[in-house]
């Protein structure tokens, strides 16, 4: 299901490509060089509508690329967030700047650190579920990553 934000991107003619293709990490076009590896989230308690999704983005190319939009069939919105600790106090903040994957480098998300906030979950994530996470890169275009729900 393509949410409002994606619909806008499609209307603007951005290279969203195969929006319903759910092959994990499939690239849209030839120019891209970012691989989405190890996308996962935990089972979500029934009462909960927000969950953290963790992905690792590996840029095997020689040009920086930037995440410009995020969406998922299972979340109303997906926002990069960072958890930080100050004297035992945990805080989460939406990532202020761009999410840039440096050339030859990677972004590794993990619990208690950088993660993607999936908001507006209406069906709880069950262990073993898989769902599509849409990541739109500035250069590479759309990547449909497959998120696995598992206990970790």
């Amino acid at each position, binding site marked *: 299901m393509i949410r409002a934000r994606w619909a806008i991107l499609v209307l603007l003619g951005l290279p969203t490509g195969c929006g319903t293709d759910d092959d994990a990490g499939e690239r849209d076009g030839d120019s891209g060089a970012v691989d989405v590896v190890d996308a996962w989230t*935990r*089972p979500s*308690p*029934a*009462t*909960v*509508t*927000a*969950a*953290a999704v963790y992905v690792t983005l590996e840029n095997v190319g020689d040009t920086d690329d930037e995440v410009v939009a995020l969406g998922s069939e299972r979340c*109303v*919105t997906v*926002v990069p*967030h960072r*958890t930080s*600790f100050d004297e*035992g*106090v*945990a*805080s*989460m*903040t*939406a990532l202020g700047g761009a999410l840039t994957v440096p050339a030859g480098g990677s972004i590794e998300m993990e*619990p*208690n650190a950088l*993660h993607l*906030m*999936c*908001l*507006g979950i209406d069906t709880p994530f069950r262990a073993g579920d898989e769902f599509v996470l849409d990541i739109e890169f500035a250069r590479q275009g759309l990547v449909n990553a497959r998120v696995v729900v598992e*206990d*970790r």
Partner: protein
Amino acid sequence: MTLVEPPAAVTEDVVARPRRPWRRRLVTVAAVIVVSALVGWLTLQWLTPHPYSGTVMQAPTAAPSMDGLVWDDGTPVDVTELGGELVLVYFGYTSCPDVCPTTMVSVERALDEIGDDVERVRVLMISIDPARDDAARVGEYVRSFDPAFRGVSGPVDDVERVASTYGIYFARDEPLEGGGYTMSHTSTLLGIDPDGHLRIVWPSVLDPDALAADITELL
């Protein structure tokens, strides 16, 4: 003809080879060193306090009251009834997508490691977001991690008072894009020992193995 005497060197060799007293002495000395080292190490282990991964209170005091708060079955929380068990107390909230689930999973993993001692450990999460979390909701949340975990909540004023006496800070963050909000909160894990004393504070990021060792030591 004269008799040929055996070479002198051969005679010496035959006499010297089977003796070598230094070799036996070396073995004895080595054995003494090894045994002494072992005894020393064991003594040191016995004398050295357990290296807790949390901060242990130097002068533990009775766990502060939780009056006003209720269990997930609606009954009032009475801290004085918690004696005899090790109680792990976490102040969190159910709309917490990263830190709270990570803590719950770490605690659950630690309890998996301690065998039958788990019968003497109680885990409870107190909501610092009572506007959205009643106790039943917190209970449903924590049971998704372990059916034995318990949820606690209560009126905002009581939650604020209890959190404050336990040294827990919390505040509502800016509204999220798309609605809702998150909370900033002290995310340490507290331990009330079987004598009812607030005894230990574990850091926000837990190592399940170290936590398991600490729990075993505290019981």
